[in-house]
C-alpha cells in the first residue's frame, strides 16, 4: 500500500516536471532560435543538421541591419508615434472620464453610449476610409495620420471612469467648498488617487502601439514616418533573397527592449493586462 502511494507521488511529480519542461520548451525555444540565428552567419544558418550553439557570434549581422534599413530613423518614428498617442490620450481621456464619472448633463447618456459603442471598433475596420480621408488632406506619410486616429481611447475612458466613480463624493464636495475649480480637482485630487489605473493604461497603450504594424503599414507609402515593426519587414528580402540571420537580427532588435522591460517589470505588466481583461 505504502509503496503504491510513494510510487504514485513520484510518478505525479515526474509528470509535472515533464509537462513543465514541455511548456518551457514550447515558449522558450522559438526565442532562443531567433537569438541563435541572429548571431549565425549564412552558412551556419542553412546548415543541416542545424547547430544549436555558435562559439563565435557574428555581431556584424546587426550592422547589416543598420545598413539595410534606416533603423534609427524608424526608431525615432516609433517613439514619436507611441509617445504622441500617449500624450494625446492623457489630455483627452482624463477630462472625459472625469466628466462621465461626475456629471449628469443633457446628452451625457448618449455621449457615453457612443463611447462604449466605439470601444470594439478595430483599426482594421476604419483604415480604408481613414486612408482616403488623410490622402484627401495630403496627410499620408505624416505623423498626424499615425497619431490622431488614436488620440483618444474609448476603452481608457471607460476604465478610468470606473476608477473615478469610486472616489468618495464627500472628498470632491470638500474640495468644492475650498472653491477649487473642476480642473484643479482633476489634477490635484483625482489624478493622484487614480495613478495606478493611469499607469496601467499607459503601459498597455505603450506596448500595443510600440508593437503595432498594421496602422503604420497601411497609412504610409514611404519611409518618412514608418516605424520599426514596418521597417523590420523589409529585411525579409536583403540582397535579393531571404537572409534569415539578418531578419532574425532585426527581429531581435525589435523585441529586445520589450523583453528587457518585461524581465524587470513582469509583475506589473501581467497585472496591467489582467486588470484590462478583468472588467
Amino acid at each position, binding site marked *: 500500500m505504502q509503496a503504491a502511494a510513494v510510487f504514485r507521488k513520484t510518478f505525479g511529480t515526474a509528470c509535472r516536471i515533464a509537462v513543465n519542461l514541455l511548456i518551457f520548451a514550447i*515558449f522558450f525555444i522559438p526565442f532562443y532560435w531567433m537569438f541563435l540565428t541572429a548571431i549565425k552567419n549564412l552558412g551556419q544558418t542553412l546548415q543541416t543538421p542545424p547547430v544549436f550553439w555558435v562559439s563565435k557570434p557574428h555581431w556584424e549581422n546587426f550592422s547589416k541591419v543598420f545598413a539595410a534599413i534606416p533603423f534609427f530613423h524608424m526608431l525615432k518614428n516609433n517613439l514619436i508615434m507611441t509617445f504622441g498617442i500617449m500624450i494625446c490620450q492623457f489630455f483627452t481621456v482624463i477630462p472625459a472620464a472625469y466628466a462621465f464619472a461626475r*456629471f449628469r448633463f443633457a446628452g451625457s447618456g448618449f455621449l457615453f453610449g457612443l463611447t462604449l459603442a466605439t470601444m470594439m471598433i478595430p483599426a482594421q475596420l476604419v483604415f*480604408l*476610409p481613414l486612408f482616403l480621408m488623410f490622402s484627401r488632406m495630403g496627410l499620408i506619410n505624416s505623423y498626424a495620420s499615425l497619431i490622431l486616429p488614436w488620440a483618444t481611447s474609448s476603452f481608457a475612458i471607460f476604465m478610468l471612469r470606473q476608477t473615478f466613480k469610486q472616489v468618495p463624493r464627500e472628498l470632491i464636495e470638500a474640495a468644492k467648498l475650498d472653491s477649487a475649480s*473642476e480642473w484643479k480637482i482633476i489634477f490635484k485630487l483625482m489624478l493622484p488617487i487614480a495613478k495606478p489605473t493611469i499607469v496601467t493604461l499607459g503601459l498597455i497603450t505603450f506596448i500595443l502601439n510600440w508593437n503595432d504594424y498594421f496602422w503604420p503599414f497601411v497609412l504610409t507609402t514611404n519611409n518618412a514616418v514608418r516605424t520599426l515593426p514596418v521597417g523590420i519587414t523589409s529585411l525579409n528580402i536583403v540582397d535579393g533573397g531571404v537572409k534569415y540571420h539578418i531578419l532574425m537580427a532585426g527581429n531581435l532588435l525589435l523585441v529586445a527592449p*520589450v523583453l528587457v522591460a518585461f524581465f524587470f517589470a513582469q509583475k506589473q505588466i501581467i497585472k496591467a*493586462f489582467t486588470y484590462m481583461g478583468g472588467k
Partner: protein
Amino acid sequence: MRDTGKTIEAYLPLAMPIPRMAAAEKYLRRAARAATPYMMVAPAIWSLCVFVVYPILYMIWLSAFRWDMIGPKIYVGLGNFAELFSNPDFYVVMGNTFRFMFFSVSISIVGALLLAVYLKAKTRTNAILQSFIFTPYIISMVSVAFMWVWLMNSEYGLLNFILGKAGASGVRWLEDASVAMYSMIIVAVWKGLGYNVIILISAMHAIPNQLYEAAALDNTKPLKTFFRITLPMISPTLFFLTLMNIIAAFKVFEQVALMTGGGPINATNTLVFDIYQFGFKFYQLGYASAQGVVLMALIAVCTAAYFGALARRVHYGGEA
C-alpha cells in the same frame, strides 16, 4: 484695502451698476459651470466622431459606389454586395476567416483553461511558466510571424528537423494549401494563449476559498469540483474572453500579410487581408468597402452580445 484717502462716498458712483453686473456675472458663471462637462468630453468625443463614426459612415456610403480612387464615383446601389455574394472567392475568404476564428479561439480558450487549472497554484515555478507563456503576447506580431516563418521553413526550419528526428516526414507548413491555415492557427494560439491564461487564473483566484473547502469536506473528485465550482464561477470571464478572442480573430491581418500573403492559392486569405487587397492593390474601393460592411456586421454582433451580457449581469446584481 489700501487707504487712498478718499471716503467711501467717493466710490458710490462706481458702485451704482453693481447689482446688474452681479446678475450678469452669476449668469455667466452658471453658463460656464453648465458648459464645463461639455468642454471636458469635447476632445474625446470630437476625436471619436472624426476618426471612428465618420469613417464608418463614409465606408457604408462608399459601398454603394464603384470607384478606383482616381476616376469619378459611379453609383451602383447594392451592386457591390450583389457582386460580393456572387463571387466564389468571397466564400473562400469567409470560410478561411471563420475556420481561423473557430480553431484559434477554441484551441486557445480550452488550452488556456487547462493551463490555468494546471498553473493556478501560487508557486515560484508556476509564476515563471506563466511569464514564459505570456511573453509572446507582448511582443510585436511582426517578430512572432518571422520567428515562425523561420521555424516552419520546409528545408532549413527547426520544426521539420525535429519531426525528422522523430521519424516523421517534413511538413510544408506554409506552402501546402491544406496545411497553411493550420500553421497560421498554431502561431495565433502561441501568441495569444498567455493572455487568456493569466485572465483565467486571476478569475480562478477570485473564487472564494470556502467553496473549495466545502468540496474538500465532501471528498468531491477534482474533476467534479472543476465542473461544479470552478467553471460556473469563471463563466462570465470565460464568456467575455471568448468574445474578445473572436473579435481579435476576425481582424487577423499581420500574420497573413507577413507569413503567406494570403496564399497558397487563397488558402490563408482572410477578410481584412482581402479588404486590403481590394482597396490598396486592385483599387476597387466600393467593393472593398462592401467587404468592410460585412466585417462591421460581424463585429457588431459580437459587441451586441458583449453588452447584452454585461447589462444582464449588472441587472442580476453580479459583480462587474
